[in-house]
């Protein structure tokens, strides 16, 4: 068992190393210009975010509409502690830990709520965080925080993404992951089998918040400017869309859908203002096709196929 694990791990790391080297070369040679570089880094950051939300929504079955709040907390905490003198790497860790702490504190009371009530409460919490941040003058208030150095590089973002994938994969394929999945499947049966469902819901929430905070920190030092409404519930909704379209729990599906959906508005940029109409229209059409099981395009097929595999691969 350990042997197959080591083999898989080495294969994954090797493949990642290759991808990294290829992209680094393309970036340093200017083949990929600065504009696309930012997009690629945003994709990586969104993947970290999406996987963190994926743990909560798809694996543990808790619909959170406020996940971007943890990104905000991570971003602001990292930027703030950096100003006080902490180096970049430790600022990122600090931001993630603060976000995780909030995840724990918020998770504890709210995860007793089910389904739609949980969704609304998390959405409310997200808006509260936005309003609170808008009213902290030291953080720039509604104008936001400027002057954050561009310390996020492609290497940092890629490395963080790989760590996120490995850690979350490890969690999901373990007894903790199994417990989380059982919570999603049937809470009452899970409790009857000895699982403290609240404990594992909070665990998923806290872990998810940690990585969302990490993504937030990376984002702050990439954009060099953060302001509260960037993290409002629209961002949370985006995450839910990435995660749900990626299929039920499958890592590959989640990564693919996040990549595609992050790039989609860019690809549609030629449509000018109309892209913001085409994007939701496409979304609605995809959801209807999915419900009716229509395989009209390869795109819909990819989402559905990875979804089905995910159901089988979800537990170790």
């Amino acid at each position: 068992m350990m042997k197959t694990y080591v083999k898989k791990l080495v294969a994954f790391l090797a493949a990642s190393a290759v991808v990294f080297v290829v992209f680094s070369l393309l970036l340093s040679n200017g083949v990929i210009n600065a504009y696309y570089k930012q997009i690629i880094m945003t994709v990586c950051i969104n993947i970290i975010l999406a996987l963190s939300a994926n743990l909560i929504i798809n694996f543990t079955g808790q619909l959170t509409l406020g996940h971007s709040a943890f990104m905000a907390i991570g971003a602001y905490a990292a930027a703030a502690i950096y100003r006080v003198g902490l180096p970049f790497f430790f600022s990122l860790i600090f931001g993630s830990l603060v976000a995780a702490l909030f995840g724990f504190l918020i998770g504890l009371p709210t995860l007793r709520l089910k389904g739609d009530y949980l969704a609304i409460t998390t959405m409310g919490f997200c808006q509260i965080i936005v309003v609170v941040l808008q009213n902290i003058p030291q953080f720039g208030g509604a104008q936001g925080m400027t002057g954050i150095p561009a310390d996020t590089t492609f290497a940092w973002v890629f490395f963080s993404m790989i760590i996120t994938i490995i850690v979350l994969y490890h969690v999901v394929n373990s007894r903790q992951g199994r417990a989380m999945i059982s919570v999603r499947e049937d809470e009452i049966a899970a409790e009857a089998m000895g699982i403290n469902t609240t404990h594992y819901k909070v665990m998923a929430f806290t872990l998810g918040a940690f990585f969302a905070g990490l993504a937030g920190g990376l984002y702050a030092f990439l954009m060099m400017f953060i302001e509260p409404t960037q993290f409002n519930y629209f961002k949370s909704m985006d995450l839910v869309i990435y995660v749900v379209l990626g299929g039920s729990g499958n890592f590959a599906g989640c990564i693919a859908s996040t990549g595609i959906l992050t790039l989609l508005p860019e690809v549609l940029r030629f449509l000018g203002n109309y892209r913001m109409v085409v994007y939701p229209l496409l979304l609605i059409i995809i959801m209807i096709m999915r419900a009716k099981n229509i395989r009209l395009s390869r795109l819909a097929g990819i989402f559905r196929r990875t979804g089905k595999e995910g159901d089988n691969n979800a537990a170790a």
Partner: protein
Amino acid sequence: MPLLDIKNISIQFGGLSAVDNFSMSIGENDIYGLIGPNGAGKTTVFNMLTGVYSPDSGTIMFDGKSIAGMKPYDITRMRIARTFQNIRLMKNLSVLDNVKISFVSQTDYGLATSIFRLPAYFRQEKDTEKKSMALLKVFNLDGKKDEKAANLPYGEQRRLEIARALATNPKLLLLDEPAAGMNPQETQELTELIRWIREKFHIAILLIEHDMRLVMGVCEKIIVLDYGKIIAEGTPKEIQSNPKVIEAYLGEEAPHA
């Protein structure tokens, strides 16, 4: 001292008395039955035993400890396991994964061990796999270990639910209508299975059941509930000829013309 000692538990739902002054004790290796017409309160008794509900009054002592009002997962750790009337398997998961869920509470490696893949992870996972497969084999489900639980025929789903419950290593097993939806042949196999489980696992079994063949065939003592109250208890023979029981199930004899 009996393994399970219930004294005078009662519960009301919105003014309606669902269970009234229920008492019972079971010893370590007994097989008892709880019967009664639909709505008599049998599953409610199970739910109080397993922490889904908390009794309004009375005490429940298990293995010397008071368990009334404890949370379901704590009661499972006290080694009481149950199956459900409506089969609550995790339908989208495989047969093997359904059983492995029960081992979450039987293993103890922490989150850090999972994240860093320390040796304890591999050791305990291997152990879980071995024990799960052994249990599946015992119930003849090992051949279907990767099959989605939803795809199993009904009788196998019931067996899987029992296997899953046994995986938590209980001292007392509560079976809620295990023969529901089974034909006579399957019911006969289930009767033998229940006896066999008691021998092999050295546990006590309390079952709720409507199928009288199963109840009379396997239970040493039967308690009869009607409208939340105990109306009779005794051996199968005693219960079969008890007029109160007959009346509860079949109604009073019609007056002759």
